[in-house]
């Protein structure tokens, strides 16, 4: 196991390094966006003096390298700076409550997004894997084809279309679930769940195809292996052959695809959030880009990058652990 621990530590260090590189890329990219906050808030009639004054207040007149390290230093300590928009409002109202900190602004939104992702994953992952196993078991049958057609058409349709179809059937024609997912901080879990279900179902439809098809392919890929033949020649039932003999050896590719889709659930949900008016991080991100609220944009990007890296890291480690050769060295 010491072996495995070394690998995990190595991967963690590498992940951190990747995040560092990504932070640089994010910073440069965001700062290369045309226009800036001062101009966008002051509008067309802005005098150069007013623009310069706001830029000075926000520190935008500093050279990029020093701004990057100031930002990075803060981010490492969990301080993502102050939101430009909130900060200027605070200036206007004269309050110093700290409501302008990016962290405070993002935290509840991020929690909402994570909740949505968790609910979607809890539905989509088991659903996709069971479908994949069944499709492999009844490969080339009507069931297999129907599953493939269904999942492929759902992944090929635009998300907003799926969302509206679900709203039509589950909220309008049969009012089972609410069409709008307005969520507040002091809601009970069951209420929250009910409001989240429709977006979660939409996301399930989006991510199932990928995971289900990988499960099916990874299993079928193994069916010609000698140990699968052996299991059949031991008189094991087809279901047992697949679940007990093929699936454990097909885990590595499945885990990787699941991780990519989980990352998508966190980072790629903007459209679904907009359709359901779900107060997640995606909406915040889009608004911030619109206002050139650079600290918020940067923080969101960093969170997305971290989610991707962390999930891929987890997938890597779990695929390694799924290999008995590494878990049980000679």
């Amino acid at each position, binding site marked *: 196991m010491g072996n495995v621990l070394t690998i995990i530590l190595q991967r963690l260090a590498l992940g951190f390094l990747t995040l560092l590189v990504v932070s640089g890329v994010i910073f440069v990219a965001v700062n290369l966006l045309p226009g800036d906050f001062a101009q966008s808030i002051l509008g067309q009639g802005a005098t150069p003096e007013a623009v310069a004054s706001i830029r000075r207040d926000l520190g935008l007149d500093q050279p990029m390298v020093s701004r990057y390290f100031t930002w990075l230093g803060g981010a490492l300590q969990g301080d993502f700076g102050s939101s430009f928009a909130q900060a200027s409002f605070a200036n206007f109202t004269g309050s110093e409550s700290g409501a302008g900190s990016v962290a405070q602004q993002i935290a509840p939104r991020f929690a909402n997004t994570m909740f949505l992702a968790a609910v979607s994953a809890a539905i989509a992952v088991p659903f996709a894997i069971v479908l994949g196993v069944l499709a492999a078991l009844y490969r080339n049958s009507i069931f297999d084809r129907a599953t493939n057609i269904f999942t492929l058409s759902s992944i090929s349709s635009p998300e907003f279309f799926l969302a509206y179809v679900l709203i039509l059937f589950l909220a309008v024609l049969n009012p089972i679930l609410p069409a709008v997912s307005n969520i507040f901080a002091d809601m009970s879990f069951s209420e929250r769940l009910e409001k989240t279900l429709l977006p979660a179902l939409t996301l399930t439809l989006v991510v199932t195809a990928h995971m289900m098809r990988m499960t099916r392919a990874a299993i079928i890929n193994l069916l010609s*292996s000698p*140990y699968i033949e*052996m299991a059949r020649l031991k*008189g094991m*039932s087809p279901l047992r052959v697949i679940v007990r003999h093929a699936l*454990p*050896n097909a885990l590595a590719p499945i885990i990787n695809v699941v991780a990519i889709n989980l990352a998508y659930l966190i980072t790629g949900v903007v459209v679904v959030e907009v359709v359901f008016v779900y107060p997640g991080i995606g909406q915040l991100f889009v608004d911030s880009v619109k206002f050139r609220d650079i600290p918020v944009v940067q923080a969101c990007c960093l969170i997305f990058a971290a989610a991707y890296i962390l999930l891929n890291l987890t997938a890597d480690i779990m695929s390694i652990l799924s290999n008995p050769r590494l878990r*049980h060295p000679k």
Partner: protein
Amino acid sequence: MTQAPDTTPLVKIRDIRIDGRTDETWIPIIKGVNLTLQRGQVLGLIGESGAGKSTLGLAAMGYTRDGVRISGGSVEFDGIDLLTASAAVKRDLLGKRIAYVAQSAAASFNPAHRLIDQHVEGPVQHGIAGRKDSAEDGIALYRKLRLPNPEEIGFRYPHQVSGGQLQRAMTAMAMSCRPDLIIFDEPTTALDVTTQIEVLSAIRDIVAQYNTAAIYITHDLAVVAQMADRIKVLLRGEEVETADTRTMLDAPTQDYTKSLWAVRSFERPAKPAVQTGAVPVVSMQNVDASYGKVPVLHDVSFDIHAGRTVAVVGESGSGKSTAARCITGLLPPTSGQILFDGKVLPADYRKRSKGQLRQVQMIYQMADTALNPRMSIGQIIARPVQFYLGLTGKAKRQRVDALLEQIELDPAEYYNRLTSELSGGQKQRIGIARALAAEPRFIICDEVTSALDQLVAEGILRLLARLQDELSLSYMFITHDLATVRAIADEVVVMKDGRVVEQGPKAEMFSPPHHAYTDLLLSSVPEMDPDWLSNLLAERGVDNIGDAAVNKI
């Protein structure tokens, strides 16, 4: 169920016809074979690869692989027609009354589960025994099969156990439900000779002890002679003949069977001793080598003289191929040096001149993977001709044609073919031509015949011998097959654990006194005498064969 009287056969296959699918058409693999097996009897099924042995063996279980179908005939197991039986009925028989032991236990054990979990799966799922009882029985079987640490070995994963032990564990697994019939599909082909002998004796004992009937599939006549009561010879999907083992060995009636028996008699005449003071073509001197931090070769020295064949013998992992990699410069030694014609060769092939590279060529074990499948035969051979000799255009074509003639393939017919259109033996000939194209003085033959059938292998050995005489080539012949050594070698180098344990002229090596390890290797090679294994066991005792004996040395 009432026990059927002993006169009814356990397996009755009549006029079975099996097709395999290639390129959307069904090609017959088995063309009407009959097979009858009585209870407790062991039937040996022999033939070349492609003869349909495994297909027939699996058909006796009512099973066909993907892309294979049974198109006619009948298969009865204990009165049950397996071809019309439902999948559920067959599943109930498989594992429980008919078991299978595969060629490669390493590939046929599921890498994700412990051995004992796989062992008990059959009994538990078939409702014969509980997990605990079955596991205890498994340990008892491991002990009977003389596996080391029978109490503990089941808790290991397949990759943690050696090939010979896995093969015995698989035999134990096949025995777990005490079946009436076991199909052994080349169970020792992938093993070293010293390991093979252990597995053979274990299988033979346990089959006799439980009076299990067996179909033993192999291409090795000497092995089948030890194991089977009766032998059936197959050739291209048809039966050649069937007889009792002794009758078959003493008096085969068919020409094909006689030719199989005769293969082992090829032996080239001995060459005169090398003059003292002659400079060897290749000389390894005190070579140490390692893969990363793992040392593989320790102080290896041997010479190869002009026009001679040095056979390097040893089991897998003994460092034979590593020595070859050092000579070619693919693996620079950590110490020691390699001399060519008395001059030191740079250790790394990248530092060698074209002339030096040209002198050392290789022929590989798997001709399938050593030849580029996208290139025509002409292109494959022309490449070294152009690279080393600088020939182009017509001269190149002429040289390639000449080479094809040397390996006894018609240039007009083969020049434009792809390797996928050739048989295994023909592919190996292309490998030889490619090595010859560089006009080397020294060729390393790495297990060049071990993937081939005996008749084909003999053809390759004769070709290599002829080329050696004509071109005065030197060979380093890496092999684990002592019959091959006997056929072609002038001198023998025996390796074990990265060291040379003994070396000398062939005649000396094959006559006593031997180094203990050489002795073990020689004595482990099965002979055609059906009493050979019994005699050897009586002479040496079970503890002095196989791994146990190796560990004592």
